[in-house]
């Protein structure tokens, strides 16, 4: 997919819209272009390069994040998982390193880097701790991104500098009765004075314990159905906002997941993100991008689990007079697992570059997220087995990677939702 898109690029600029579509159908049925947008400029320097090629600053970022993860996060991973809390110093470190404002423009105190840079950072963090990775992912690819895309100038000026340097953010869409069926949400917003009053509750809200800024989706006109859904910006200290419960989870336990209650939560008019009634569009759009981030979290997790196990198999554990990694049975499993990781990474990086190129990336993102989570689950499970007893005990990280992998099939669109998205797009392409 990657090479065919790239091979087509020189041709794309000269082809007319109609023939472009034909050309794509012919050579690469998997790639659909947004016909409304011209593909001329590429924000990343990706001309005729391998899909894993990184720009100079992306390479530097990768190195810095890897160093930070190994030096600062790694010593705390086990304790944070046992305590089911994020160490404050880790969050402070993320802000200090500029990892909470990767794409936020420099004028707002961010780093002004590319979307792919965010993907690289999320992947590198997940190699060490998928919990920290998801915090960084949600904050950057959902919350900050929503402000950047749809926030008014005033909202951007007020919140982006805080998001980049000191305040964590949460994205509040899911509710007790609306998960995959996100647009069935029940939280209502009623006009009052110069703003809205929100009542209802949200569930499965990532980062909620750490966050100070919340994007809340609520319906201002239930009669209009999903067309009443509107995005609001609330802060932790707004009267009527409360955290009802912190969930105890199977995996990514250092990342907080909470139930939120809104009891006459007043939100001033200027805190409406974008336009009234457009919330459903924003939610779909941002989650499509977010899936690439979760894909990166899952490939990072798979890589971390794989590396952790092979180091043990090839350096430490001897049975029958030789390292267990010398046995062909294990060698071949190790090779196969790495192959699957690289295939998943290719999907993730291709999806990221496709988005950067301004092309339609919905199916690419769904495929990347789906496959990456499948590979993560499989490889981290195998890694436990390769390490035997040492993989099963809660001393090392093998069992934790496996527990952490489970969420990949659940959040930001379950595996079935991804399959539904992929098959819908394909059906449209192949229906006469």
């Amino acid at each position: 997919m990657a090479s065919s898109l790239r091979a087509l690029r020189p041709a794309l600029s000269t082809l007319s819209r109609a023939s472009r579509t034909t050309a794509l159908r012919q050579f690469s049925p998997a790639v659909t272009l947004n016909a409304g947008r011209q593909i001329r400029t590429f924000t990343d320097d990706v001309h005729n390069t391998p899909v894993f090629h990184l720009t100079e600053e992306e390479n530097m970022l990768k190195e810095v994040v890897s160093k930070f993860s190994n030096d600062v996060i790694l010593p705390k991973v086990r304790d944070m998982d046992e305590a089911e809390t994020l160490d404050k110093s880790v969050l402070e470190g993320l802000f200090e390193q500029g990892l909470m404002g990767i794409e936020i423009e420099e004028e707002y105190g961010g780093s002004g880097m590319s979307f792919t840079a965010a993907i690289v950072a999320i992947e590198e963090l997940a190699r060490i701790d998928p919990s920290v990775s998801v915090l960084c992912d949600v904050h950057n690819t959902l919350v900050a991104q929503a402000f950047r895309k749809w926030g008014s100038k005033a909202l951007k000026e007020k919140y982006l500098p805080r998001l980049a340097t000191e305040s964590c953010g949460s994205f509040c869409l899911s509710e007790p009765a609306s998960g995959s069926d996100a647009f069935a949400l029940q939280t209502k917003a009623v006009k009052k004075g110069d703003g809205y009053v929100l009542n209802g509750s949200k569930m499965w809200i990532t980062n909620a314990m750490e966050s100070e800024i919340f994007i809340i989706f609520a319906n201002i006109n239930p009669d209009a159905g999903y067309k009443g859904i509107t995005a609001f910006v609330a802060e932790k200290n707004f009267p009527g906002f409360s955290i009802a419960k912190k969930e105890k989870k199977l995996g990514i336990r250092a990342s907080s997941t909470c139930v939120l209650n809104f009891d006459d939560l007043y939100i001033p008019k200027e805190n409406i993100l974008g336009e009234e009634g457009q919330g459903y569009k924003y939610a779909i759009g941002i989650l499509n991008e977010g899936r690439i981030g979760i894909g990166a979290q899952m490939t990072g997790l798979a890589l971390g689990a794989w590396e952790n196990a092979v180091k043990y198999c090839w350096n430490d554990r001897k049975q029958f007079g030789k390292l267990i990694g010398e046995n062909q049975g294990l060698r071949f499993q190790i090779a196969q697992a790495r192959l699957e990781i690289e295939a998943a990474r290719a999907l993730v990086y291709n999806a990221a570059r496709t988005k950067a190129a301004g092309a339609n990336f919905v199916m690419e993102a769904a495929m990347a997220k789906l496959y990456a989570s499948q590979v993560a689950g499989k490889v981290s499970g195998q890694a436990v087995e390769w390490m035997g007893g040492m993989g099963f005990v809660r001393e090392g990280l093998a069992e934790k990677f496996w527990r952490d992998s489970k969420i990949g099939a659940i959040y930001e669109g379950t595996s079935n939702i991804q399959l539904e998205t992929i098959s819908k797009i394909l059906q449209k392409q192949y229906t006469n």
Partner: protein
Amino acid sequence: MSTLRILVPVKRVIDYAVKPRVNKAQTAVEIAGVKHSMNPFDELSVEESVRLREKHTNKTVEDILAISIGPPKAADTLRTAMAMGCDRSIHVEVPEKDEMLEPLQVAKVLKEVVEKEGRNLVILGKQSIDDDSSQTGQMLAGLLGWGQACGASEVVLDGEYLKVTKEVDGGTEVVRGKLPMVVTTDLRLNEPRYASLPNIMKAKKKKLEKKKLEDFEFRAVNRLKNLKVSEPPPRQGGGKVEDVDGLISKLKELGAL
């Protein structure tokens, strides 16, 4: 209070965490496809220079210039130095090959840069972790006729003077010298920062000047030739003895007693 114009030489070396391997021809250590990064001692130099600027009133440090003599990839190392806080850099590009420049050659190039760029303080690593020569700083001080303080664990600026604490066998030694000076850094001097993302982006806009060895008056010629590089022989497993008597009888058996 004097204004500091600092030169920080940095070197791109095989990453400290990588286990080096000798190439097949036994002429050098394998460098192709091996992870490289900034010499750890040089990270300390960069950090100390940046801290000198942060610790003192503005304008105490006029500018921090990083320099590297190395293959095209050494530019990455300079970008890192600039992302950590250096203001600009010079890359003296030399082709990637097995033989490295020797300390005297490096020192002579640095001397020319010091004079041309009007430097009055050079902070450099006490050694690089690849050839471990540990000579460049001293040679540079000698060529310039400047004072030197090697293996610094603390550097304090006091007007025209630098007070440098050095760890020596059995304690510490404190020396005081008048600028201009050469200081080499030791491991306990500081903890180098990570380059933050915004600073990585800012480093992109900082000036990186390309030069070649031919641009310098001094002509580089290596005086030593590597004849052979080999890995240390693998350790032979020893035997265990139960007690002192066992040890004595073993030593007698081997004819050592």
